[in-house]
């Protein structure tokens, strides 16, 4: 091994391999510290949700003991049964699904058209349009809360689902346009030329060639828009009361007046039910999500 160091070539991969093969005491300690840190990072990020999962299946008595009972003595599903039999919660779940899916579909339909123009076409007024959209991705939701509330009440949409869909478009649509425009811009320039040679109109070129190629981008932005709409709280809390209440304000309003009154078992069961689909989606699409997030953030 000593000879390896002496003639170590200045190549990244070989250097890395020879580096990991030297087992001096310092290296071993470094390696152990490294793995402790890695395990700590995983523990730190995963623990709260794992704890919620574990606590939500504890028998009620073990949920409120001190010292804390870490491993449940039996599996108890009564919290889940209660939540899934609760009409208010089921309505909220249905409302969340309707609002999130509608928001995503509208954002993608309108956003992909706009993004194609922004990413591939030259036209006068493109720069102001770009600035308008970019500024809309940055301004705080609270800045329009009052006037949007007034608008929604005047239109008779208070406590109705369209109010939330409209409100959510304010952040999902600019984001969709921004990320998809970058996506279209990165496609090779000859695509439309080839279509043009075949006698296609610009719109046909978009629908038949570019849009199918953009499918991965559509999936990513759609997923990110879905998560944003599903997790939204401020507008849902302000623009709905009962009929159109979504899951986030429903879970938040489990709060009682004192800490002793809180039905923690039900809160945790509802939290797990609302989060599990998201966690599964994220695990399946993690590569796409990371790519979409870095595209949105780094290029934005």
């Amino acid at each position, binding site marked *: 091994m000593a000879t390896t160091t002496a003639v170590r070539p*200045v*190549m*990244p991969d070989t*250097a890395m391999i020879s580096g990991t093969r030297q087992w001096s005491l310092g290296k071993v300690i470094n390696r152990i510290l*490294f793995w402790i840190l*890695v395990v700590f*990072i*995983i523990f730190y*990020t*995963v623990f*709260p949700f794992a704890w919620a999962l574990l606590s939500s299946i504890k028998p009620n008595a073990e949920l*409120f003991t*001190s*010292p*804390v009972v870490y491993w449940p003595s039996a599996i108890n599903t009564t919290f889940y049964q209660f939540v899934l039999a609760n009409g208010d919660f089921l309505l909220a779940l249905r409302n969340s699904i309707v609002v999130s899916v509608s928001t995503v579909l509208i954002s993608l339909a*309108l956003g992909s*058209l*706009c993004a194609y123009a922004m990413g591939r*076409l*030259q036209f*006068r007024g493109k720069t102001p*349009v770009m600035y*308008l*959209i970019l500024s*809309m991705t940055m*301004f705080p939701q*609270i*800045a*329009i*809360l*009052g*006037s949007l*509330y*007034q608008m929604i009440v005047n239109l008779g949409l208070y406590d109705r689902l369209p109010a939330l869909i*409209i409100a959510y478009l*304010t952040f999902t*649509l600019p984001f969709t*346009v921004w990320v998809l425009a970058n996506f279209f811009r990165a496609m*090779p*320039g000859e695509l*439309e*030329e080839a279509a*043009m040679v075949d006698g296609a109109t*610009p*719109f046909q070129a978009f629908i038949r060639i570019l849009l199918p190629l953009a499918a991965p981008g559509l999936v990513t932005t759609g997923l990110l828009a879905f998560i944003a709409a599903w*997790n939204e709280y*401020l507008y849902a809390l302000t623009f709905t009361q009962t009929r159109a209440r979504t899951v*986030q304000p429903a*879970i*938040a309003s489990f709060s009682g007046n004192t800490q002793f009154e809180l039905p*923690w078992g039900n*809160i*945790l069961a509802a939290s797990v039910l*609302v989060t599990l689909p998201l966690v599964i989606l*994220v*695990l399946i699409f993690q590569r796409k999500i*990371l790519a979409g997030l*870095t595209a949105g*953030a*780094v290029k934005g």
Partner: protein
Amino acid sequence: MTQGVATAPLPQPAKPGRSYDLPQSGWMKARERLAWLLVAPSILVVVLVALYPLLQSFRLSFTNARFGSTRPELYVGFDNYARLAQDNVFISALGHTLVFTVASVAIETILGIAVALIINSNFNGRGVVRTSMLIPWAIPTVVSSQLWRFMYNQDNGVINDVLVNRLGILSSPVAWIANPSTSLSAIIAVDVWKTTPFMALLLLAGLQIIPGDVYEAATVDGASKWQQFWQITLPLLKPALLVALIFRTLDAFRVFDVVFVMKGAALDTITLAIYARQTMIDEQYLGRGAAASVVIFFCIALLVIVYSRLVRVEET
């Protein structure tokens, strides 16, 4: 046609935003018309549901408008803003927001860099770490706030149990959320948990574009790991770092969910966004609340301008 075909085989990738200008004027005109047709629906939505309400908020902030009041709406100049300046709750909300923003962004940035450096090295199980790091980000803020409230619980929360019964660091359990001296820090800790992994993932993307041979050359020159970090990693990471900082600061400054779910509008943790909502919706003082939200808007606009200057300086 011939030109189009002739340029096609060139191996160079198309430069973004250019090089599709074809000489065929019919196509060009059709494309310009098409562009406006395609952009119009999105612009219409953005103008109607975002830009118009935003301008309306500016206007309302100069009026005495109230919800559900038959009293005529009057222009009152800067009265609302003057009242905000004299309102102790507003001043403390501003203070909490600043503390929250500076503390959470600083901690998240430093921890984020550290975590990104750790997972940037090649090891088995790197994918598992990256996956686990997306989980806090994916959990809705309302849910994670409730989970942490459960863990912070004074009598049977896991945090007090570990600190008092298992490790013996504290002699008696602390009411982390209820106690005004720990509440804001406890909330910042939740935000750090939720956002550090996300920050680390953004920075990791920035780290991965730094070529490995730069470090090799530095090692040959005898630079220590510590020197390499300050002389190579940090300067090359700066663009990614600045962008991550912009997004984090903007998010932190308008913080609402985590604080409101854990504490409602309690005076020891109230933030600007909670103050604005409370004034507009619950107390129905639309004008004064709009003024508070305009203040938030301008603080954020200022941050965007300062940061984008920094980015531009960085790029030139």
